[in-house]
């Protein structure tokens, strides 16, 4: 029995190493000089140039216009992540409320339209989406960056499922006490959904932050670059330099994953709950 448990731990430790080692190597190498990396390959232990690399990446302006740094890109990613998650929650809580709690003739028709949007991810219709957004004059704007991504109704579905699991008696009781649809939503349903909203907020923030394809298409103006797509830029620059700035590219990769990882680590319980609930 004892020996079996030991192999279990070994398997788990191996799994943990498999997942974490790459990230560790990226971080450790980013604290070395580019010459060291060029001559000796990626590093497995921390070097002495943490501050030099990271302050250069964060604050020194680069790019064609000499006006972008990681702080700006992180700010754009934050706007995208927050705008995406808050926007989705605002729109989907009320849409799901209408679908679940109201009897209206076009209800099921609308439901199916919303449902159909789940079937086709943005990746399938990128070019026409790009054309629509450019016709609306939304290229290079936060609106154009965020709104088309909200079109997929995933959050509406989470909330629809959740509302359906709320006991009938609550609405009955509220109506007997004379609560109208507005009161019921604000005073009863929203407080009941608090954990669900927190969980979806975390998941959607990570999803929004991690968007890649749409920001690439949407933004030609460097002041709208997000950090995840800034990576592509860095990748193009790498080939041009005499001594490739590996340390900076690695540091930017690390910075790009740091905020969503922190969010997931800090709100671990809610985030796991949100993911698992969405399955039902």
């Amino acid at each position, binding site marked *: 029995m004892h020996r079996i448990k030991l192999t279990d731990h070994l398997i788990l430790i191996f799994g943990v190493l498999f997942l974490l080692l790459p990230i560790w190597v990226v971080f450790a190498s980013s604290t070395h000089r580019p010459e060291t990396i060029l001559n000796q390959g990626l590093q497995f232990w921390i070097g002495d140039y943490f501050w030099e690399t990271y302050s250069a990446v964060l604050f020194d302006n680069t790019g064609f216009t000499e006006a972008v740094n990681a702080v700006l890109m992180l700010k754009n990613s934050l706007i995208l992540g927050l705008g995406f998650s808050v926007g989705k929650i605002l729109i989907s809580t009320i849409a799901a409320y*209408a679908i679940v709690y109201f009897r209206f003739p076009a209800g099921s028709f609308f439901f199916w339209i919303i449902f159909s949007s789940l079937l086709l991810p943005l990746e399938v219709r990128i070019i026409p989406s790009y054309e629509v957004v450019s016709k609306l004059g939304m290229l290079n704007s936060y609106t154009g960056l965020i709104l088309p991504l909200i079109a997929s109704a995933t959050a509406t579905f989470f909330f629809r499922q959740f509302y359906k699991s709320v006991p009938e008696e609550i609405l009955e009781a509220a109506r007997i006490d004379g609560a109208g649809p507005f009161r019921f939503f604000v005073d009863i349903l929203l407080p009941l959904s608090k954990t669900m909203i927190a969980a979806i907020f975390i998941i959607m923030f990570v999803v929004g932050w991690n968007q890649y394809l749409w920001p690439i298409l949407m933004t030609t103006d460097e002041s709208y670059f997000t950090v995840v797509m800034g990576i592509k830029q860095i990748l193009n620059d790498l080939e041009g330099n005499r001594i490739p700035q590996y340390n900076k590219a690695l540091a930017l990769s690390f910075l790009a994953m740091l905020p969503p990882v922190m969010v997931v680590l800090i709100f671990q319980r809610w985030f796991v709950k949100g993911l698992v609930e969405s399955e039902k």
Partner: protein
Amino acid sequence: MKRQQFDSSTLPYLLIAPQLAIIFIFFVWPAAQAVYQSFMLEDPFGLASQFVGFDNFIDVVSNEHYARSALFTALFSGLVAFLSMAIALLLAVKADGILHGQSAYKIMLTWVYAVAPAVAGMMGVFLFDRSIGPLNHLFNATGWPFNPQLDVFDASVTVILVSVWKQISVNFIYFLAGLQSIPRAVREAALIDCRNGFRRFWTVTLPLLAPTGFFVLVINITYAFFETFGVIDTMTRGAPGGGTATLVYKVYQDGFLGADIGGSSAQSVILMILVLGLTIVQFRVLEKRIHY
């Protein structure tokens, strides 16, 4: 739907209006546009276009690059889904079985979820780099002349490995939750009836885990189809010679970089039909086969 509902003539429309507006402008309109353009041929300057019937579709389907991309997508998706699910299931079963340190393992194994596919791809670029990548050196040391820039097989290995790495965490979360939702009474009964751990897993745990497993499979196929775009775009850009371009990546390459709007739209429509088919199968199977 609820038995008890509000009756109101305008309020529900107002509540649902923002969602519908966004869906119409950014989903229905572009999707309709894609269908329309798939039947049109546009001149290279986008000045004029004419109706060409199914020509775009015939061109796409008879194109050998497209057939190759379809084959690669099938193999790629199958392998990514299988490997990441198998590894995650093994880890979930082990994590579920141990008593000490379970929550520590749980945290360490879940947070890779938050890494963007594009960032994972970028890490892959460095780890597999010819001059500085430790994995490249490792493969070469085993006698494998590893060269993802020139060899399609080697390039496929790199994108598959990175895609699998990125997906293990999500699968682990779902499998562990699935395992822990199996009632204690059932587990104990199984423990008494069947001493052999491996057989117990096959005959009791795995069937009970089937609904979760099916759900995870669907998620993984969707992931391998669409979300791996970031991995492929950072690591190989479909190279060498289009050998690692998935169908979704080809839509982007042909339409956005190649400016073949008609052909790219036809590919979009084919993908839409494919995804629709997958969804229908998903519902059929969910309804019929897996019920406990």
